[in-house]
C-alpha cells in the first residue's frame, strides 16, 4: 500500500482542486452578466403573478439565504456554507418545495439510470471492440460502420429512435416517466416491476450509444496491442489464443479506463438529454422544468450536483486505475 501513497496524494489533491473550481464556476458564471440574476427573474415573474405576496416571500428568503445585497466574496462564502448544509433555498417554480427536496429524488433516479448504463455500455463496447480486432473478417467489417454511425448519433437521437420503435410503433415499452402514473412508490412487486419496465428504454439508449463509442476506440487499441511483441512471443511459447485475448484485453483496457474518467463529463451530458426525451424523473427533466420555470436556485443547484457527481466518478476511476495497472505501483517504488 505504501507504494501508492504518492499516486493517491496527487489524485486527492486534484480532486479537491477541481471540487473548489466547480464551486467557483457554479457561483461566478451566472453572475458574469450585469445585474442580480435573481432580481431580474423575480421582476419578470412578478409581472404575471397574481400571488404577489408569494413572489415577495420567495425573493425575501432567497436574499436572506444567499445575501444578495452583500459584497460578492461574502456571498460566495455564504453560498458554500449553505451548500454544505444542503440548503439551496426555495424552488421558484415549485414553491413551497425547497430545491433540496426536489433534487433529493431526482438525484437517485439519475444515478440509478446513468451509473449502470455507462458502466454496462463501457464493458460491452470494449469487449466488442477487442473481438472485432481479434476476429477481423466479416464481424469486423460489420461492426465498424455500425459503431461509427451509432457513436455519431447523439444520445437523444438514439433515445427518440428507440422511443418511436418500441414505445409508439410496437407499444412494447412505456415512453415516459420512471414508473406508472397510477402507482405510488412502495416496495410492492408491481411498483418495482413498473420501475424496471420504465427503466429499459432510457437505459438502452445510453448503453447503445456508449457501446458504439467505446467499441471503436478499443478496436484501435486492440489492433495496436495485437501487433505487440509480447503477443508474438506468448504465441511462440505455446499460449492459447483465448489466453492471448485476455492479455490484450487487459492491456488495451488500461488506457480505456483513463479515457472513461475523462469522458464521463460528456457522457453524463448526453445522458441527461436522453432523460428529457423520456421525461424520466431524473436531473435532466428537473433541469428542463427549472429552465422553463426560470427557477434559478434549482438550475444552480442541479448543475452543481451534476458537476460533483462527475468529479466523484472521475476520482473513483482514477483511484481504481492505480490498483489495476501494475506499472503505477512499480513506478512508485523506485
Amino acid at each position: 500500500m505504501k507504494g501508492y501513497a504518492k499516486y493517491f496524494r496527487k489524485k486527492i489533491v486534484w480532486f479537491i482542486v477541481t471540487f473548489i473550481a466547480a464551486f467557483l464556476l457554479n457561483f461566478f458564471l451566472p453572475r458574469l452578466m450585469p445585474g442580480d440574476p435573481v432580481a431580474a427573474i423575480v421582476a419578470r415573474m412578478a409581472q404575471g403573478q397574481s400571488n404577489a405576496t408569494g413572489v415577495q416571500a420567495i425573493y425575501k428568503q432567497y436574499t436572506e439565504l444567499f445575501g444578495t445585497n452583500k459584497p460578492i466574496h461574502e456571498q460566495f462564502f455564504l453560498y458554500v456554507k449553505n451548500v454544505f448544509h444542503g440548503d439551496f433555498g426555495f424552488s421558484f417554480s415549485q414553491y413551497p418545495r425547497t430545491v433540496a427536496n426536489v433534487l433529493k429524488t431526482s438525484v437517485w433516479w439519475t444515478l440509478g439510470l446513468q451509473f449502470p448504463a455507462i458502466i454496462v455500455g463501457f464493458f460491452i463496447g470494449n469487449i466488442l471492440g477487442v473481438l472485432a480486432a481479434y476476429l477481423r473478417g466479416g464481424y469486423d467489417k460489420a461492426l465498424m460502420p455500425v459503431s461509427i454511425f451509432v457513436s455519431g448519433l447523439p444520445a437523444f437521437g438514439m433515445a427518440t429512435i428507440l422511443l418511436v420503435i418500441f414505445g409508439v410503433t410496437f407499444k412494447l415499452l412505456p415512453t415516459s416517466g420512471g414508473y406508472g402514473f397510477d402507482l405510488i412508490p412502495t416496495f410492492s412487486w408491481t411498483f418495482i416491476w413498473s420501475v424496471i419496465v420504465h427503466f429499459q428504454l432510457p437505459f438502452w439508449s445510453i448503453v447503445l450509444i456508449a457501446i458504439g463509442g467505446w467499441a471503436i476506440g478499443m478496436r484501435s487499441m486492440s489492433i495496436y496491442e495485437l501487433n505487440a511483441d509480447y503477443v508474438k512471443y506468448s504465441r511462440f511459447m505455446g499460449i492459447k489464443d483465448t489466453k492471448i485475448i485476455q492479455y490484450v484485453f487487459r492491456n488495451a483496457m488500461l488506457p480505456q479506463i483513463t479515457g472513461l474518467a475523462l469522458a464521463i463529463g460528456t457522457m453524463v451530458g448526453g445522458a441527461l438529454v436522453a432523460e428529457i426525451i423520456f421525461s424520466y424523473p431524473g436531473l435532466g427533466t428537473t433541469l428542463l422544468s427549472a429552465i422553463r420555470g426560470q427557477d434559478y436556485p434549482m438550475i444552480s443547484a442541479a448543475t452543481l450536483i451534476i458537476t460533483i457527481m462527475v468529479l466523484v466518478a472521475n476520482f473513483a476511476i482514477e483511484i481504481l486505475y492505480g490498483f489495476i495497472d501494475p506499472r503505477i505501483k512499480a513506478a512508485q517504488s523506485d
Partner: protein
Amino acid sequence: MKNTLQQVFHSGKFVVGFTIFTFILLMVIIFPLLVNTPPLGIISQGSTQGSFLPPGLYVNVYDSIATTPYTLNLDDAAAKRIASRLSPADRTAIKEWLVKAGIPENEIDTTDTDTLLDLWASNYDPGKEMSGMTFAKTRYYQRLDASLQGLLSTQGLTIAAAGTDTLQAAGSVAQSDYVNVTEVPNVRLLALGTDNFGRDVLPELVSATGTSLLIGLVAGVIATTIGLVLGLAAGYIGGVVDDIITFVNNLFIVIPSIVVLILISYSIGQEKRGPVTIAVVIGLFGWVWTAKAVRAQVISLRNRDHVNMSKLSGHPIAMIIFTDILPYIASYVIMAFILQISTAILSEASLSILGLGPKTSSTATLGLMMNWAMVYMAPSLGKWWAYMPVIVVIALVSFSLNLMNTGLDQVYNPALRE
C-alpha cells in the same frame, strides 16, 4: 502534400463521409435558391387542427372544383372509394353481426364487397335484439350503417352556392370527374408536413440545418484556434506556461462542458441569444481536447532533429513554428477541427432541447426543431415528420463528419488500415 491528398481521397471512408457532408452542404445552399418559401412562414393555423399536418400533396379543393374536370373511367375507382370507408375491421364486424343474425358463416365472404353490402342492406335491422352485445357496440353498428348509405351508389354530388335565402345549384361533381393537378392553381407539396407552429417542415429543416452548420463552423473555428494556440504555447514554451495551461485544460475536461454551457447560456438570457452568440459560447469552451492533442504532438516534435537544426540556425520562433511544427500537426488539427464541428452541432442541439438555445422566433436550428417537437409531444402523437427528419439530418451530419475523421485517421495511422 499532394501525396497525402491522394491517399486521403483514396480512403473509402473519407470519400463517403465527404460526399454525404458536401451533399448536405449543397442542399442547404441550393435549396433556398430554388424554393422561394420563407422557412419560418406559418402556413397553417397553429391550433390543434392546423398544427402537425402530415406530409403530402395538398390540393386546394375550392380551386379544383372550379377547374375543368376530365372524365376517367378507372376500374378500381369504386373499390378504392369503398375501401377507404370500409376497413378490414369493419368488414369483420359486419360478418360477426350477420353470423349472429343467423346467416351461415360460410356464405359470408368479407372480400366480396358487393355481396357483403347486399347481405348487410337486406339483413340489418337497427332494432333487432342481439344477445350479448354491449350498448356501445350497438351504437357502432348504427354509425357504420349510416356511413355506408350510398356507398355503392354511382350518383355524383351537387355543389350549392349560398344565395339570398335558398341554396342554388352552382355545379355538380360526377364520380368519374378527375382534375389534372397541374391545372389547379393552388397546389402545395408539403414533403414533410408542418410542425406544431404550422410551418412547412422541409424549408424549415433546410434552413435549420444551415444555421446549425454555421454554428458548428463558427464554434469549430473558434475552438480549434484557441486549442491550437494554447496547445502550441503549452507544448513549445513549456515551463510555467505549460503548467498553467495544462491545469486549466484538465479542469475543463473533467468538469462537464454541458454544465458550463447551461450556466452561461442561462445567464445571457433569452433576449441576447442569437445563433452566433451561442456558437461563440460553445467555441469558447470546446477547445479542451484539441489543446490536449496539440500539446502532446508539439512536445514530441519539440526535440526532433529538424527543429533543433532550425534553432541552431537562429530562425525566429514564429518561423520555426510555422515551417517545422505546423506541418506535422496539421493532420491532428484538421481531424480535431472536424470533430469540433460535430461536437458543436450536438452541443447546440442539447442546449436547444433544454430550452437554452438561440431565440426561437427568428431562427430555426436542428436542436430547436427537436425542442418544439418534444414540447408539443410529437413523438407520442405519432407525428413523426416533426422530429424524425431532424434526427436523420443530425445523424447524417454527425456520421459523415465521423467517417471523414476515421478515414483521415486511417491515412495518418497506417496500423489501423484494414
